């Protein structure tokens, strides 16, 4: 038995530690631990609910807008306040642009190098690579000339001995199996993706006033002024800028990212067999298309025990079942408290004990739905949509599965999506869907403005008595909910149940592990000193611990460690 401890495991903000016990080349037991206290929402107690979102968007440096949005939705829910259609569309466009940005960064910059061995790129035949890429997609960046230029850059990088950040990859690992040509194609798009991240940011900047911290939200709507005759407001020029940004961004997502994810999946079909883990899925509806938020472009629902034939739909954010079902357990987390707590009654009082395998070992609480652990994220989103017969989900999922099955190898079915590779693929499917929806919601906004509706805000009225609300958002990493109690016009409690809390959850009082932990069971580990396979499965969830003080380390101390114990 070999014990491996990887700390930290994320490429972005936050401290995530994964411990696994390996025997006979596979993982037998796993623990997910967040090594920094996550009680940032306590800073909101006593504050004016109208300004909560400004603080909430500082919970995490990567997921800024999603917390801002969940916060205003929570207060609006408590007030039962409708927001104008223009405000829904503007918020939706911000959320779509943010999600596209986030998913692109995850695929290329946070996880591609777990699969792509760039040191083989000098051996690639650019003509052959161009013909493979051309056969799969109409993306213009796939020309032989473009790929040759990227190959030369990589040759230069390797020749200079200055691989920089790329020197830490598990190059030459036996689990790296792409051809030099495939590695070249994916790395070329990795570089191109940097340009498209900017375009997504620009959309958020135009609508939100600034990025990454948007300025235009308000409880009751948005503060964007709409006047087609004014240069300083939302007018046809701005709408035209948004249209052209999306027209550049959408082809990259649908012709490069989506296709790359399908090619990657077809090249690593064995990863549809690993990493299933918790097969209970939760997704909330999002992208409302009316003021009352009764109709949504992304469906929500609950699937239990991997039974994709049966989904309990969550029709809207007033759904009573989800409000009653969610509770957080702290048996194995460094907090005080007995039994699961409903978030409105939730407390965050620390009780640190050091790492105990069978006791407390993490700062992440264990959220449960009717007592069960749940997996959230794009996979939950896609499975719920597919099971509910949602047309857009079916269109892009079927396109992906057909694309993968057209490559010689095993046929992939919707059932196979419940896996490590399924999570990568689901994120790409969701991105392709969101790209279609971006153009649709821009059209909805434009049409509504042209109809003469310039309203963006309904002023909130706060009662003196205590009110409670929950704000839901299907964020890039999955279901996010902010639970607020407002008393005498100030927050008296504020709990954020974030996607990574669901997925990185520790064991609960019944001993049931969370999704990261259970997904690692039976994962292969070819070389305990280079646990690449563990990273693949954990990265498939797109971890973001969102809790850390990020002080820049200039002392040159080694931070990341893989310890084989």
């Amino acid at each position, binding site marked *: 038995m070999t014990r491996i401890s990887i700390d*930290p*495991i*994320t*490429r*972005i*903000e936050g*401290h995530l530690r994964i411990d696994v016990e390996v025997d006979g080349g596979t993982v037998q037991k796993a623990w997910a631990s967040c090594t*920094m*206290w996550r*009680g*940032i929402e*306590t*800073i909101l107690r006593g504050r004016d609910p109208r300004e909560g979102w400004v*603080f909430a968007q*500082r*919970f995490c*440096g*990567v997921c*800024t807008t999603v917390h801002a949005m969940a916060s205003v939705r929570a207060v609006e829910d408590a007030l039962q306040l409708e927001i104008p259609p223009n405000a829904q569309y503007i918020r939706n466009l911000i959320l779509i642009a943010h999600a596209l*940005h986030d998913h692109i*960064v995850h695929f290329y*910059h946070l996880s591609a190098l777990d699969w792509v061995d760039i040191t083989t790129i000098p051996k690639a035949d650019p003509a052959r690579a161009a013909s493979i890429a051309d056969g799969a997609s109409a993306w213009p960046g796939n020309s032989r000339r473009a790929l040759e230029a990227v190959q030369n*850059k990589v040759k230069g*990088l390797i020749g200079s001995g200055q*691989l*920089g*950040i*790329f*020197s*830490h990859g598990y190059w030459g690992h036996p689990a790296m199996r792409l051809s030099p040509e495939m590695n070249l194609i994916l790395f070329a798009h990795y*570089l191109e993706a*940097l*340009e498209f*991240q*900017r*375009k997504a*940011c*620009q959309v958020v*900047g135009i609508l939100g006033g*600034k*990025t*990454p*911290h948007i300025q235009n939200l308000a409880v009751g709507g948005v503060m964007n002024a709409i006047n087609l005759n004014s240069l300083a407001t939302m007018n046809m020029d701005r709408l035209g800028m948004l249209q052209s940004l999306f027209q550049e961004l959408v082809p990259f997502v649908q012709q490069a990212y989506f296709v790359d994810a399908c090619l990657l999946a077809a090249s690593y079909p064995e990863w549809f067999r690993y990493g299933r883990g918790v097969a209970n899925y939760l997704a909330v509806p999002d992208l409302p298309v009316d003021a009352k938020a009764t109709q949504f472009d992304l469906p929500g629902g609950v699937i239990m025990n991997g039974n994709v034939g049966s989904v309990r739909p969550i029709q809207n954010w007033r759904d009573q079942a989800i409000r009653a079902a969610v509770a957080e357990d702290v048996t194995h987390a460094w907090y005080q408290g007995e039994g699961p707590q409903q978030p409105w009654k939730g407390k965050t009082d620390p009780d640190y004990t050091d790492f105990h395998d069978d006791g407390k070992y993490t700062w992440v609480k264990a959220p449960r739905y009717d007592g069960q652990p749940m997996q959230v994220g794009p996979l939950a989103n896609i499975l719920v949509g597919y099971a509910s017969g949602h047309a857009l989900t079916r269109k892009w999922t079927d396109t992906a599965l057909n694309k993968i099955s057209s490559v010689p190898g095993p046929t992939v079915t919707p059932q196979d999506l419940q896996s490590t590779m399924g999570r990568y693929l689901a994120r790409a499917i969701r991105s392709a869907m969101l790209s279609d929806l971006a153009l649709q919601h821009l059209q909805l906004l434009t049409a509504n403005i042209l109809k003469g509706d310039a309203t963006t805000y309904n002023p909130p009225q706060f009662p003196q008595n205590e009110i409670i609300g929950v704000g839901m958002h299907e964020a890039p990493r999955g279901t996010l909910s902010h639970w607020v109690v407002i008393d005498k016009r100030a927050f008296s409690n504020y709990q954020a149940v974030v996607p990574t809390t669901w997925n990185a959850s520790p064991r609960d009082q019944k001993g049931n592990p969370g999704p990261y932990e259970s997904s690692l069971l039976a994962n292969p580990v070819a070389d305990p000193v280079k646990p690449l396979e563990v990273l693949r499965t954990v990265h498939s969830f797109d971890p973001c*611990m969102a*809790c*850390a*003080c*990020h*002080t*820049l*380390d*200039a*002392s*040159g*101390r*080694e*931070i*990341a*460690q*893989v310890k084989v114990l």
Partner: protein
Amino acid sequence: MNACAAGSDPQTSKRVCVVIGLGNVLLGDDGFGPLAVEMFRCEYECGSNVEILDLGTPGLDLAPYLYGTDLVVIADAVKAEQKPGTLCIYSEDDLLGRRAQLRTSAHDPGVQECIAQLRVAGQAPSELIIIGVVPESCALGSGFSASVLSSLSLAVDNIARLLVERAIDCRRRQAPAQPNLWWLPGDFKCVASS
């Protein structure tokens, strides 16, 4: 317009400069970067080719803001051996030369990774400088420690000096603008430039 829209403009051949504050304002001294760039904005006036941005803790999402720029000045809390409040200035080589580890951590805003990516893509800034201060406490919501505040005006003036030395339009305002330090209590007073 925001920095994502930036990029060298060949028509004017004006160099694009970004002054960035990094750090989480909810975590005490970690908010030094956002504080410093806000005070810089209030005390100095710059040409339209200079953008001043509070980017929080973007990790790898920093890349779009550095893409295609000429000069980047980052104000941030830094972990170094010196005592709290010490002001440290680093060049890009100082930063990149240190290490390239398996994974970045919480104690790393992703600057190294972003620069390395942008270099390969041919879009890295021509020059990057970090103005750091050693924090005393990065506890939740505790405001700023006296040691860190004592270095604030020095940090702000150094941002201006770095710009002026590179012939970038940056002048002290005759009357400082009112800073927007929304995350601090209303009675907060910072000992800023004289």
